[in-house]
């Protein structure tokens, strides 16, 4: 019932505004890409959108793994765009725009610039796995997208930061460091929603790093 009423108000607004002649919508190519550089999106609006996104996905999956995979795919779509625009904003005015070709600067770029572009602050830590040479971890003590999410007990494995993992995966893919990226809950006493984004790089990446080292 509440849904219906929302629909009807929306249509009445549409009706009123259609009486006023609207100026033609400018082409997306005419917009300035730097206009929204420092603009923020309302946190509650985003939380609402993200909660709908999780619910929509949840109603179409068979289990937690599937749900995380789908959130990852959605994040990937965001990540490939975030990468293009973040680098464009940083490099387009320079005489000789640069790409990242080394692994560590690329990871630092994600930790600092991508996090800042998406969440408004750098991530809290970046670590290299002690056991496996091909694993890196980005730690966020209080992920923005999970701030208003409380995961039920029987879903304890689920991490909605899979969306963030998708963003990271897209950025690494774009920069030619293919990897499998997953999100894991790693709470501690101080930060109950602490999340680790685990990056498992493909073999080819490490081989290339070895060649570039010399």
């Amino acid at each position: 019932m509440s849904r219906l009423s929302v629909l009807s108000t929306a249509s009445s607004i549409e009706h009123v505004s259609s009486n006023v002649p609207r100026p033609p919508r400018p082409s997306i190519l005419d917009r300035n890409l730097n206009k929204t550089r420092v603009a923020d999106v309302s946190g509650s609006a985003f939380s609402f959108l993200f909660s709908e996104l999780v619910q929509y996905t949840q109603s179409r999956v068979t289990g937690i793994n599937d749900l995380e995979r789908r959130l990852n795919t959605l994040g990937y779509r965001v990540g490939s765009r975030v990468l293009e625009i973040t680098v464009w904003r940083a490099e387009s005015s320079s005489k000789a725009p640069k790409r990242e070709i080394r692994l560590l600067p690329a990871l630092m770029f994600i930790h600092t610039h991508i996090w800042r572009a998406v969440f408004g602050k750098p991530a809290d830590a970046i670590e290299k796995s002690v056991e496996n040479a091909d694993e890196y971890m980005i730690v966020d003590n209080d992920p923005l997208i999970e701030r208003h999410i409380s995961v039920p007990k029987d879903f304890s494995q689920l991490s909605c930061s899979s969306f963030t993992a998708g963003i990271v995966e897209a950025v690494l893919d774009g920069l030619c460091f293919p990897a499998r990226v997953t999100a894991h809950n790693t709470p501690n006493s101080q930060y109950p929603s602490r999340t680790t984004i685990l990056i498992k790089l493909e073999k080819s990446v490490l081989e290339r790093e070895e060649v570039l080292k010399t």
Partner: protein
Amino acid sequence: MSHHLFILSPSDTPIYSLTHYSTKPAASIGSPLSANLPNWSTSAFAGTLTALSGASSATQHTTGGTVRVGGGQDRHVIQMIANASLDAIEDVMRKENGMYLKAVDKFNEWTVSAFITPGNSKFLLLHESKNDEGIRSFFVEVWEVYVKTMMNPFQSAQRTIVSQAFDGRVRASAKKHL
């Protein structure tokens, strides 16, 4: 003098192509090979053979007084040169961190310059004369409209760019810089 632009998706599928005929005077490059070649016109592969041998004068088609190369029969040769240069580009882009890779490959009279976007899409330009600064400005402008197009949620990096506004913008900057 003609320029050929190809935009390739991260998986190297062509998603946009443009042939631009520059109005600027071309520096005439003598092709010694062309003078020694027999007339191929009776062969079915005339266009391919002469274009591959670099004898551009034999395949030039005159339309309305302007000389056009690569837009007609020998279009597939241009595509082949662009495809072949991908190997050279992949080698260079692993080692160099610039986005603009100038003159990465050469084939007869054609020079291939490339621009790699951060998301690993490639812009390829086949050109005949040296014009580093113009090509750089051209690539940077194409990059801007490319980013704007990719921000559209209905467009993906894998899909052909059909937007007429995009086409218009690219043509305008080609006219300006090439």
